[in-house]
C-alpha cells in the first residue's frame, strides 16, 4: 500500500513538471530539455528554506515556484527574441550548468553526495490537492487572453506579432509559468523523498517530461496528464527492464513525432462537458463522438 502511495505521489510530482512543459512546448511551441533544472532549483530552494531555516511547507512551495520562475529569466531573456533553436540550446546548457552548481554548492546544497534531512511533508492527499489546484489554474490561464497569445505564437510567431502580441514577453511569461510549475513539483519531490542529489535532476528527467508531453499530444493538457499517469506507472511495473527505460523514452519521442505528431490526443481535450455529452450520446445522435470542447473557447 505504501508502495502504491509512493508511486502516486511521484505521479503527482511528475504531473506538475508535465503541466509546465506542456504549456511551454505544447501550447507555446518552445522546446526545453532543461526542465529538470527548474525542478532541481525548486527542490533545493524548498529544502533549504524548510529543512534548514525551519519555514513552513507552504512558504517552501511558493518560494520554489518563485525562484524557478526567476531563474528561467536567465535563459529566457536573451533567447525569447530569437528563433527556437537558440532557446533549446540555452535550455540544454542551463540544465548542465545547474547540475554543476548544485554539485559544487558546498554545505549549502550538500554537493554531489546529496542533501539530507528534508522534512517529510508531501503526503498523498496534499500532493493530489496541489496537482488539482495546479491543473485548474493552468486551465484558466490557457482559456484566457494569455493562453490564446501563447497558442497564436505556436501557430505563427510573425502573424501573432502582427496582431499586436508582444511575442517576446508572452514567450517569457509562458516559460516563467512553466518553470514555476516544475519548481513546485521539485519542492513536492524534496519533501516526499527527504533527501536530494543533483543527479536526480539530470537530462534523463528532462527527457521524461518532454517525452510525456509529446506522447500525450502537443497542445492537449489532458493528453499530457493521461500520458504522465501511464508513463510514470509503466516503468514502476516493469522494474526489471529499468535499463531500457530511457531507450523507450527516446524511441517514444522520435516515433511519436515521425509517425503520429499529434500524439495520443492531438489538441483534443477531455472535459467534463465533453464527457457528459459523450456518455449521453446514445440517447441523442452520436454525431460529435466525444466532441469535448477544447480548452480554448
Amino acid at each position, binding site marked *: 500500500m505504501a508502495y502504491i502511495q509512493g508511486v502516486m505521489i511521484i505521479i503527482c510530482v511528475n504531473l506538475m513538471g508535465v503541466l509546465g512543459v506542456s504549456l511551454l*512546448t505544447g501550447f507555446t511551441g518552445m522546446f526545453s*530539455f532543461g526542465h529538470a533544472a527548474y525542478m532541481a532549483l525548486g527542490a533545493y530552494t524548498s529544502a533549504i528554506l524548510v529543512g534548514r531555516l525551519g519555514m513552513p511547507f507552504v512558504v517552501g512551495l511558493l518560494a520554489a515556484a518563485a525562484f524557478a520562475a526567476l531563474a528561467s529569466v536567465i535563459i529566457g531573456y536573451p*533567447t525569447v527574441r530569437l528563433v527556437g533553436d537558440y532557446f533549446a*540550446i540555452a535550455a540544454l*546548457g542551463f540544465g548542465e550548468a545547474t547540475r554543476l552548481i548544485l554539485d559544487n554548492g558546498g554545505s549549502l546544497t550538500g554537493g554531489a553526495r546529496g542533501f539530507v534531512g528534508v522534512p517529510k511533508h508531501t503526503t498523498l492527499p496534499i500532493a493530489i490537492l496541489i496537482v488539482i489546484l495546479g491543473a485548474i489554474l493552468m486551465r484558466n490561464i490557457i482559456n484566457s487572453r494569455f493562453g490564446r497569445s501563447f497558442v497564436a505564437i505556436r501557430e505563427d510567431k510573425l502573424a501573432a506579432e502582427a496582431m499586436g502580441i508582444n511575442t517576446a514577453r508572452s514567450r517569457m511569461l509562458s516559460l516563467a509559468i512553466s518553470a514555476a510549475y516544475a519548481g513546485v513539483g521539485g519542492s513536492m519531490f524534496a519533501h516526499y523523498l527527504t533527501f536530494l542529489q543533483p543527479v536526480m535532476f539530470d537530462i534523463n528527467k528532462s*527527457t521524461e517530461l518532454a517525452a510525456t508531453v509529446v506522447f500525450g499530444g502537443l497542445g492537449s493538457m489532458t493528453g499530457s496528464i493521461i500520458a504522465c499517469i501511464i508513463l510514470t506507472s509503466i516503468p514502476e511495473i516493469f522494474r526489471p527492464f529499468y535499463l531500457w527505460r530511457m531507450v523507450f523514452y527516446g524511441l517514444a*519521442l*522520435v516515433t511519436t513525432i515521425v509517425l503520429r*505528431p499529434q500524439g495520443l490526443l492531438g489538441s483534443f481535450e477531455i472535459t467534463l462537458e465533453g464527457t457528459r455529452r459523450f456518455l449521453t450520446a446514445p440517447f441523442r445522435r452520436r454525431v460529435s463522438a466525444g466532441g469535448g470542447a477544447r480548452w480554448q473557447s
Partner: protein
Amino acid sequence: MILSRVLQQLVNGLSIGSIYALIAVGYSLIYSILRFSNFAHGSFLVVGAYAGFFIVTAMSIPFIPAVLLAILTAGLAAVTTERVAYRPIRERNSPTLYFIIASMGIAIFCEHTIVATIGPKFRTYPRVLAATGVDLGLVSMSKMDVMAAFMAFLFLIVLQYFITRTKQGCAIQAASYDLQAAGLMGVNVNRLVGTVFLIAGILAGLSGVFLGMKYTVYPQLGYLTIKAFVAAIFGGLGSLPGAIAGSLLLGVMEAFIAAFLSSQLRDLFVFSLLIAVLLVKPGGLMGKYVEEKV
C-alpha cells in the same frame, strides 16, 4: 616560464578546438540547410568513436583504414537518421519544433541503447601512437594531438574545396539560402540533404575517434557536442568559417580557464559565454542573425 605556460595552454586549446571544429562545422552545415539545431549530432560522434574502438581492437585492421571505416560508419548512421526520422518530418513541412524534438529523441535513444547493450563502461583505445610528446622547444604536444589537429585541418580544407569548387558543393551553398528554391531549380533535395548528413556524420565520427583516443570511449561522450553547439553560435550559427573560428577560440579560452582558474569553472564558463553571446550579438562573430522571411 610564464611564457612557456601560456604558449602551452594556447597549443592545448587549439588542439581541442580543432576537434570541436570538426563537430561544429558539420552541425552548422546541417543548420544552414535545414534550419534546425540537430541535437542528434552527438550520436554520430559516439557511433564513430565506438565503431573505431571495435574495429581497432577486434579486427586486425591497420589504424588508418580502421579510422576510415569508423568515420564511414558514422556517416552512414547520419544518413540513416536523416532518411528515417528527418525526411518524413521534412516532407510534411512540419514546424522546426518537430525536428528539434526528434533529434533530441534520437540522442537519448542512441545513448541509452549503447548503455543497455554495450554497457556503460569507459573503454580505452589501444595505444596507436606513442604517448611521447613532440617537443617544440617552449611547448610540447602528444603525437596523437598533432595528428588529430593535422587531420582535422586536412578534412576541413577538403570540405572547403568540396563546397566551393564542386557542383554538388555549389548546390549546397545555394540550398543554404533557400532549400525550396534550390529544389525548384532542379536540385535533387533528398540527395543534397543526404550528402550534407554524410559529410556531417563523417566529420562527427572523426572527432569521435579522436576524443575516444584522447580521453576514453563511453556512452555520454556525445554530450561534448554541447560545447561545439556553443562554439557554432559563438562563431555565427550557419557559418562554416564562423564555426571553425568559434571552436578554436572556445578551445583556447577553455584551456586557459582550466589551467589558470579552475577546471570546474570551465563548463560553467561555456554556458556563461553562450548567454553573453546571445545577449550581446546573437548573430555570433561571423554570422548575422536573420529573422524568418515574411
